């Protein structure tokens, strides 16, 4: 028979039976914690404002308001430090996780902590001297461009070289507003970002080579762990982001050059933790000289999560898989061409891949198509002679659009025949670095010369394109 002491000891010594969390518990807890922090910060900010209001005499408030006034509509959040703001009026926890509009140079956020992507406008004007390097559309005419603004190396704030900026649109690029950007520079070896993708109004990723994640439309950005690798490509679909991580040694804007090992990673929207997507073998994709790799998503608009992802390896094989984070597999034999060394934006300089109703790849001057997800390829046609292809896209049946160093060409018969697109004001010098169709009718293109500060827009399936300035719109 056990005595009292034994009974207590037996109870205390009994091993605690583990009670594992339900799947997704950490994500839920993390979200709740973030919301709570945000509320606390807002309350702190509101408290500070109340205190200031209480301290200031009414005539002083009136005088101050008449001198400075509310920020007029259209005043840029990138207007430097011309608009004074009392330090006491800022949120108590004001460590900048994101730069409002343009790097740390901006000081007048429209909301506490910055400005976010919106279906209308953030209320802040787009940063001045915007040089776009990447564009993303989420549908309904809403999208964002990422680039550099201000004078590189002369931006105010904690990161002197950080001029990375974001602008949003809600009218297919006709006008732009400021959105907070991650505080980092443009691509410089292992640092900075050059590309952006938004899945919806909240979840976005800035990458190439570093990786930043937002879950509140750009209001805040946090750096994601990339395990020492560079993010050379990233696409979003369904409820996830897929990214190619690679060990590379390219310097300056050639961050995706000289890569030795590649891997596919994925994260669900709302998470900054990317996990490896299982691939054949040990999950790593070997290098092939200085060749690159790229990623495209074949979305099913009726059921976005039922689409298929495609990864072109440096050896020219296609890996494909579901948009769930589950394993991807090798698809058929090698494509007609491997992915050539990367362009500054990370995309291969040849072996351009596009996914739509069919899977397409451009190899030198020829375009090939696959109707079986990359298992087999047929020549679709010969690309236009002028210029060198830089970007390929398709959204409608038989529609193929090619950006080149000379302009934009389109084909309405799957690549058999091509016509040069009509570009209002003429093709910019150097042509285009990117073209993408959001729908069969609407698309965007970026000029190779980012200093033009423009995006080109089509609303007729790619036959005509017109420039729209980002700054001052």
């Amino acid at each position, binding site marked *: 028979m056990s005595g009292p002491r034994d*009974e207590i000891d037996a109870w205390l010594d009994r091993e605690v039976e583990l009670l594992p969390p339900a799947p997704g518990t950490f994500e839920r807890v993390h979200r709740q914690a973030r919301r709570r922090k945000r509320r606390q910060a807002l309350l702190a900010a509101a408290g500070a404002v109340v205190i200031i209001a209480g301290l200031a005499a009414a005539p002083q408030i009136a005088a101050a308001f008449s001198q400075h006034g509310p920020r007029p509509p259209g005043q840029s959040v990138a207007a430097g430090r011309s608009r004074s703001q009392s330090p006491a009026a800022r949120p108590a926890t004001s460590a900048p996780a994101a730069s409002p509009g343009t790097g740390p140079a901006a000081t007048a956020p429209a909301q506490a902590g910055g400005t976010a992507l919106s279906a209308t406008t953030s209320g802040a004007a787009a940063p001045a001297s915007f040089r776009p390097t990447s564009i993303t559309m989420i549908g309904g005419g809403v999208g964002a461009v990422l680039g550099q603004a201000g004078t590189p190396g002369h931006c105010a704030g904690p990161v002197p070289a950080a001029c990375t900026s974001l602008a949003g649109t809600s009218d297919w690029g006709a006008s732009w507003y400021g959105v907070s950007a991650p505080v980092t520079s443009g691509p410089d070896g292992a640092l900075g970002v050059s590309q952006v993708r938004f899945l919806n109004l909240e979840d976005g990723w800035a990458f190439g080579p570093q990786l930043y994640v937002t879950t509140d439309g750009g209001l805040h950005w946090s750096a994601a762990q990339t395990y020492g690798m560079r993010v050379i490509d990233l696409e979003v679909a369904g409820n996830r982001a897929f990214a190619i991580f690679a060990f590379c040694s390219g310097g300056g804007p050639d961050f995706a050059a000289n890569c030795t090992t590649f891997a596919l990673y994925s994260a669900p929207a709302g998470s900054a933790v990317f996990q490896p997507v299982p691939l054949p073998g040990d999950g790593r994709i070997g290098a092939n000289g200085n060749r690159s790799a790229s990623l495209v998503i074949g979305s099913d608009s009726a059921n976005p999560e039922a689409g298929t992802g495609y990864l072109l390896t440096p050896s020219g094989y296609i890996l494909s898989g579901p948009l769930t984070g589950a394993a991807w597999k090798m698809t058929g034999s090698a494509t007609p061409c491997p992915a050539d060394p990367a362009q500054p934006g990370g995309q291969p300089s040849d072996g351009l891949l596009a996914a739509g109703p069919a899977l397409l790849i451009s190899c030198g001057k020829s375009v090939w198509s696959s109707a079986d997800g990359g298992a087999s390829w047929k020549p679709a046609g010969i690309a236009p002679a002028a210029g060198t292809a830089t970007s390929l896209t398709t959204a409608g049946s038989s529609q193929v659009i090619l950006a080149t160093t000379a302009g934009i060409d389109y084909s309405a018969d799957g690549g058999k025949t091509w016509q040069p697109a009509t570009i209002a004001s003429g093709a910019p010098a150097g042509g285009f670095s990117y073209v993408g169709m959001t729908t069969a009718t609407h698309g965007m293109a970026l000029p190779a010369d980012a200093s033009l500060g423009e995006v080109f827009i089509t609303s007729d399936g790619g036959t005509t394109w017109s420039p729209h300035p980002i700054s001052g719109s």
Partner: protein
Amino acid sequence: MARLRATDRQAAEDLFNACYPRLAGWVRRLVDDDETAHEIASEAFTRLLARWSGLDNPQSYLYMIATNLVRDHWRKTGRERRAIRTMTAAAPGEAACHPAQDVDVRALIEGLPPQLRSAFLLHYYAGFGVREVASMLGRPEGTVKADLFHARARLKAALGDST
């Protein structure tokens, strides 16, 4: 606004993966209900992550929060639980379905004065050393040792009375 950096988030997730099952199991022994245990463990982690950056010892903080939440739960449900226990005890054959010893000791711990109870739970249950408990509770080590001694003495006496 300060937020979890990626490295902090990874560390937080690692801590979550390492500690959640044991913390939730620990809470379950005190509240005797899986759902409540998960609620308390999740809430403890939520509070931890909401002020992650300012903490030197997240694990200690986690158990402190959980201890307070368990105490709150006991306070709220005290009447209900006592009534249920009475009904359960009255139903013949039901007692064999419950870890009677576990429930008895838990009920006795629940009845300890707050000062003794916190020290007891953190030291004997969560496995923190006397020095850590002293730091967590903001009391001298000697006081914590004395609290632990008195807590055990009370439990022994109570169990002696009940046997």
